[in-house]
């Protein structure tokens, strides 16, 4: 199994992921690591219907994700891994989901946030979580869609506290 893209995206599976990222990174499997979706039959079936049949979709709780990724069914898969926010991305790391690079796609935290790019608004809690993820050896970049320039996340928070 190789993780071809680990991404934080508050929209989880949506147009940018299915139509831009999947072909760009040649993923043949999407893993959604999210407790709420894993626990909701309606959302699960909607996601299943949205993903083309040529792409394998696995939805698991954060706790189950490490096991899912290491399972035999994933052996030859090129996985696109999705987290809904930085908290989940960090929790997953701590539970043994090892990704070496983390892509920040859409982040719109509901709390008081500062906007850092057109699709990324971070609360201080998000920044703490991302710092902790980085300390675990993960490269963190911001790139909404493949045609955008990839940017180190430090560039985003250079003017921390200021609204752009």
């Amino acid at each position, binding site marked *: 199994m190789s993780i071809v893209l680990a991404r934080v995206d508050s*929209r989880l*599976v949506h*147009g940018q992921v299915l139509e831009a990222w999947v072909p760009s990174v040649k993923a043949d499997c999407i893993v959604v690591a999210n407790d709420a979706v894993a626990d909701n039959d309606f959302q699960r079936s*909607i996601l299943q219907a*949205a993903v083309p049949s040529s792409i394998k979709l696995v939805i698991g709780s954060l706790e189950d994700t490490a096991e899912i990724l290491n399972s035999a069914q994933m052996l030859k898969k090129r996985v696109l891994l999705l987290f809904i926010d930085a908290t989940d991305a960090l929790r997953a790391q701590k539970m043994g989901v090892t990704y070496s690079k983390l892509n920040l796609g*859409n982040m*719109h935290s509901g709390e008081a946030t500062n906007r850092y790019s057109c699709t990324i608004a971070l609360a201080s809690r998000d920044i703490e979580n991302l710092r902790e993820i980085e300390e675990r050896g993960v490269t963190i970049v911001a790139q*909404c869609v493949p045609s955008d320039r990839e940017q180190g996340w430090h560039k985003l928070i250079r003017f921390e506290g200021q609204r752009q």
Partner: protein
Amino acid sequence: MVGLVIATHGKLGEELLNAVEMIIGPVRNARSIAVSRESSLEDIRREMQGAIQAAGTENQGVIIMTDMFGGTPANVGLTFLEPDKIEVLTGINLPMVLKFFNSQEGIALDELAGILKTYGQQSISLASEYLRR
């Protein structure tokens, strides 16, 4: 009269309504929502809630049409799904929207939604296939 909310990536929905009005004149009980890269899910949800209320003033139900199953407009639309009150139809096209406005009066929501699904699918054609017939 059934109401219509069109939710799309970018201003596609707004322009579909413009196109419809170009063809059949002013329409009623319709709203559009443009989803941009900047929109947060909460913003979209709030806007859709308002649009559903504005389009559904006659309590005959509302159809939410979206551009693509699996896209954000459809994902948010599906959270409003409520049989007999709110239907969600994906893969919007102009014939489908025109058919809606020619049928929105005196028909039950579920029946109209079913007709529009079939109609939208049947409205797609590959011209060269006609030549081979």
